[in-house]
């Protein structure tokens, strides 16, 4: 096998349900335990878990349903979160720290500080976001394995 060729080693997908606050964080916890089993560097797991938790809570707060796909590759751990939801009309605005459309209910639960997306970007090495208003949002982010 040629060194440096990126190869998909493991993949698994998970469903996150909108408004399911009771199970908030469950998918990120499951992803975390898989990465621990695989012996991924704890610091990378930590960064990715922070990103996953934010992404998961975003789905719970704003979307109907989403699929989170974990891909463990030779060079990186990649996450794709594709939701069915209201979409984001102005991505640039949504990426600004502190910008939030959270309802008082979400804020009462300790969320909605407007740091979710910026936090995902901060804790990953690659980040991209696509959104179609009225249809949904797809987030792609990854941490690079050293």
């Amino acid at each position, binding site marked *: 096998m040629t060194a440096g060729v990126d190869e998909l*080693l*493991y993949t698994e997908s998970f469903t996150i349900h909108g408004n399911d606050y009771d199970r908030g*964080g469950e998918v*990120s*916890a499951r992803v*975390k335990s*898989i990465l*621990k*089993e*695989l*012996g*991924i560097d*704890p*610091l990378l*797991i*930590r960064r990715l*878990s*922070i990103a*996953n*938790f*934010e992404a998961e809570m975003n789905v719970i707060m704003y979307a109907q349903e989403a699929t989170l796909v974990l891909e*463990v590759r*030779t060079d990186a751990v990649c996450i794709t979160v594709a939701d069915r939801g209201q979409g984001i009309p102005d991505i640039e605005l949504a990426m600004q720290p502190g910008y939030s459309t959270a309802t008082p209910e979400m804020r009462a639960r300790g969320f909605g500080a407007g740091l979710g997306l910026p*936090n995902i970007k901060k*804790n990953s090495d690659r980040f991209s976001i696509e959104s179609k208003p009225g249809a949904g949002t797809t987030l792609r982010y990854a941490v690079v*394995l050293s």
Partner: protein
Amino acid sequence: MLARPHSVMIDGGACIGCVDCAKVCPTRAIRVRSSKASVNPDLCIDCGSCIRVCRLRAANAVTSSPEDLARFRHTVALPSLTLYAQFGRDVDPAQVNHALTQIGFDTTYDISWMCEMLAGATDAYLSECNGPWPKISVTCPSIVRLIQIRYPDLIDHLVPIESARELAAKLLRKKLSAERGLRPEDVGVFFITPCSAIINSIRDPVGLDQSYLDGAFAIRDVYPMILRTLKDGATSETSESVSRRGILWAMAGGEIAGMRNRNTITVRGVTDVLHVFDHIEAGDLQAVDFIEAYICPDGCVSGQLVVEERYAAQRNLQEIVKRLGAQPEVSEEKVRSLLRDHFFQIEEQIVARPVKPLGRDLRESVARKREIDAILARLPHKDCAACGAPDCATHAEDVVRGDATVDECVFVRLDQLQARTAPEEGTS
């Protein structure tokens, strides 16, 4: 290499292999093989859940024995604050301490004032440190071990302050050997413990090369002797008082109750601890300064080695606090000056002891993970634990790690049996 010490001993004669303990173990450290339970010392966090659940009392804590006292020229009992809560509402800590001197110890020493000082030291530490947040208390030794094994990336969250019992033992050994012209090793300092976790923190300390304590006796083992002494009308000659803020450390919430910082949380019991630690790992709860967490549901009063029912014990403590009345606080300046002298500081870094990954590298780990998933697909997902592992996923992992065979699962064996007999039926 010698097996890592842990505090739980399974009595092979009494154990019937019922799997209760394997199922309740939070780190899945117990397996039942050939109808006997055994503990994997690399995974055991000394929480004592197995001791609590065992209906045959086959799982026990390894405590000191009376013969151990004979090795020393002067013996000291350091009672856990929980001991004060064991004898109803009307018995004072001074009477309990006096009783300890009647049952075989030369001296006793109360650690409640040390606990009060530690609350001050924690406040001072929190005001001067820069995160990561929230900081987590090291008071419960099981919590520290859980973090080393299951949450290694939370090690930086632990407050690097030594426990009250170790600090007290360190001071006492020095003081008593000087006063009585003894060598430090002639003084034997023994903790009267509510739990198995503290026993192992003495045998295999964390953040310390060697414990300043020489052993521990279980509260439930010394209880009958103390009770008898109290009934004989033992009254203390001294009226030396305990700290009303310190004594609350025997129960969950007591540590933060004595702190100035109010941006704090108490987490009780293993289920909640795992839930909260998962959230901290995900970056949640960063706005909280300090978390006091216990493996036992109500803190030390609910340890496995106590006698008094835990709600009654908390009432007893509140009653003692009420009787103590108003007290001057330990001077903040004194605490800060001890802190500057590094008096409270742990002596060694706390290191991670993460669970062994499945393979030597990522590729091998992934291959093993696939094997586990393939085996798991053949298992019934009933988590019946009849195979000896606590659940099907753990059994699948044991098979891949080479510690078990897949047909130890009764359902797999049933399938095999049916597959073997089915064709014969067809030919008859």
